[in-house]
């Protein structure tokens, strides 16, 4: 009966949970088919067997208590059974697994933004490692949306002013589609994201490059975003004034005096070194308080920051 399941439900069963839902769907499907024919076969038979004949006398059957109790109680028992089966399945993902990777989803008209615990972000493209539980924490910036991955049987509303959660474990490597399932206006049907379930190796590689958001920005812009997001702005000003650290404005290509008396030209090598080993060359008049960003910044982010400083003339 696999062909029937493939006709009625998405071919892929991309999550641990999908098989469970599919089995339940098919069970209810067959139960419904049986009940449907249980109703229609008698109807058609009666219609044919007791078709109009002049003079046929019909019996005066008003009720039959036993029969009526039977056909009230049996469906009731069936429903009770289905109800418990349904909540057992539901509880499996209502309560999250102990350890899972949290992904923040922000929806807005009409795109999906995904953010990983380390700050890695991507738009309309979600990478997740195979066989690892994923914990989605979702909110919306404008109207209602709904995050729906048919292949994973994952669906949950995304609501402004609230956080909704969902757990699932992807099980098959490959590309899937997520759609918006709560009407959100003009672009509702175009609000799609690609969901890539990666092997652990591919996922690690993707995490290293930090997604593709940087490709949608000029290096200077990308650098400014990093300046704001990575905390640079708490010590470095870009308007020429002094803060806990020296300003970034107008320093590119110029010599600066260091606290050991030497001078260095601000170029790519110096900026890069200052991020990775901040204590190596400290500018005169400032304390050695900056933490190292070794391992926290990706190559595209470092390049962006360099380009940003370069642009601040």
């Amino acid at each position: 009966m696999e062909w029937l399941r493939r006709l009625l439900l998405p071919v892929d069963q991309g999550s641990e949970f999908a098989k469970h839902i599919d089995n339940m769907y098919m069970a209810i499907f067959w139960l419904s088919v049986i009940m449907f024919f249980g109703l229609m076969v008698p109807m058609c038979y009666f219609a044919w067997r007791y078709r109009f004949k002049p003079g046929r006398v019909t019996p005066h059957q008003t009720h039959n208590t036993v029969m009526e109790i039977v056909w009230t109680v049996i469906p009731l028992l069936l429903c009770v059974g289905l109800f418990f089966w349904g909540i057992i399945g539901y509880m499996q993902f209502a309560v999250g697994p102990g350890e899972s990777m949290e992904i923040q989803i922000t929806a807005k008209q009409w795109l999906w933004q995904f953010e990983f615990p380390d700050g890695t972000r991507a738009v309309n493209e979600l990478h997740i490692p195979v066989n690892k539980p994923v914990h989605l924490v979702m909110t919306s910036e404008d109207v209602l949306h709904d995050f729906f991955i048919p292949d994973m049987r994952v669906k949950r509303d995304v609501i402004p002013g609230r956080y909704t959660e969902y757990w699932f474990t992807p099980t098959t490597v490959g590309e899937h589609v997520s759609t918006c399932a709560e009407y959100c206006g003009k672009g509702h049907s175009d609000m799609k994201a690609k969901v890539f379930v990666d092997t652990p190796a591919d996922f690690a590689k993707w995490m290293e490059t930090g997604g593709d958001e940087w490709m949608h920005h000029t290096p200077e812009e990308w650098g400014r975003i990093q300046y704001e997001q990575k905390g640079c702005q708490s010590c470095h000003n870009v308007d020429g004034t002094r803060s806990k650290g020296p300003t970034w404005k107008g320093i590119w290509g110029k010599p600066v005096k260091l606290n050991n008396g030497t001078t260095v030209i601000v170029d790519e090598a110096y900026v890069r070194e200052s991020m990775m080993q901040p204590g190596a060359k400290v500018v005169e008049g400032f304390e050695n308080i900056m933490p190292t960003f070794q391992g926290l910044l990706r190559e595209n982010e470092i390049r962006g920051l360099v380009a940003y400083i370069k642009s601040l003339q």
Partner: protein
Amino acid sequence: MEHTLTSGNVTADRPRPAKNYLNETTGLWSWMSTVDHKRIGIMYLGAVSFAFLLGGIFALLVRLSLLNPQHTLFGKQWVTAEMYNRFFTLHGAIMVFLFIIPSIPASLANFVLPMMLGAKDVAFPRLNLTSFYLWVAGAALAIGSMVLGAVDTGWTFYTPYSTTTDGAVGLMTLAVFILGFSSIFTGLNFIATTHKLRAPGMGWFDMPLFVWGIYATGVIQILATPVLAITMVLLLIERVFQIGIFDSRIGGDPVLFQHFFWFYSHPAVYIMILPGMAIISEIIPTFSRKTIFGYRAIAYSSVSLALLSFIVWGHHLFVAGESDLANVIFSALTFLVAIPSGVKMFNWLTTMYKGNISFETPMLYAMAFLFLFAIGGLTGIFFATLAVDIHLTDTYFVVAHFHYVMMGGTVIAFLGGLHYWWPKMTGRMYSEKWGRVACALVFIGFNMTFGSQFIMGGQGMPRRYFNYLDQFQPIHAFSTYGSWVLGSGLFLTAIYLLASLKTGPLAPDSPWGGTTMEWESSSPPVVHNFEEQPVFEHEPYDYRHRTVTHV
């Protein structure tokens, strides 16, 4: 036109009275100012038919938009996403608020309910007319909102989209508010009529089951509709004053709106389906010429459905961040709905057992109802089961499910009832041949249109989608072709029914051999329904002394 009467009439027809409710007074004003429930019922019938036509046109436009993924006709794109969003919003809003909710109660029940009770009119005739004009005002506002800047929120007006979007949402919510009061007054009238205007000797369990169904509907109209009215007011005030109840930007909770909305709109589903079931409970015994099986069970199931309808609204919010406990409770309660619905199905089937069944158009519609409502009801089980609901909700599966209930149930029953009482209302017989052809077209077209949508939905096609993946193209096209078959069936119905007004043979008083009191009046009835006050003498659906011998 051939008069294919296959069932006999027990009493010889009296001579048709010269004056009846249609010709007693004449002129437009005599209709517009009438307080006769029969005339108001006829006016409502015309009004809701117009709404059905309008909503149907939008439905056809929705289907046509989805014929192919490029939205082209003759090689040209003819529709945009904005237009499509307006199409489905107007289709939904018109069909729900202007058509289905008033359809059976305000038109057919208005006409026959007092007559079934042996009454001369409804309890409050002037309120009845007020209700009609409120409908007209609501309809005018709704149509005005379409002209002045179409609404694109979907018929559910979910916040915060509805509080922030442009367009005439305010006008449309005002229309819904007014239509709500129209519906309340209808329900109130029927409850009071049922309580106080029963014929001498007629007790509660002597009433036709149609009256039980409409009575249960009235209870819901009274108890649920005020909440819709106040919800619409709150939405309107939120848009104008920004009070911070539904709009999340100012501290409101959009999910609260959904609770308010479904607290009405789920019971409203039963405002739609209970009258449909009520009609089926009349048609089946009449055409089986056998007493209804399990009278009390059917009556009680109507009332219990009405009461259950108030405590299941949360099943619309299973994926909307409702607490898990609430989800589990609402799931359990939702399963309970299956029981009284199932009881009715079994009773109807058992009524057919050992009957003497003929297949005029009303009976064909009743059997179509059993077929389609069985599918509509059984697919409801998928949604009651929490885990499966997660995957199916907000997809075409739910679109198909509620069309099987609302259209396959209510509209099919409405058509059945319309044919059943047409001779009584107009005094003319419609063409049985064309009636059967149209019924077949409607049945086939309906299943093509919506049956296919179960498959799309299961495969993950979300509802309210303008652009869709190419893989769904063949099924969407099939569904659209089905809508053409369905539309032509309905169009045909309109033609032969209207034609029968001129050319149809004169109808006898009781063309189907019905046993309920409305058949004791002449066709069409006199102004005060009966020439003599009918007295309750035998239980409804008593065929013991009515052997039908001639065709």
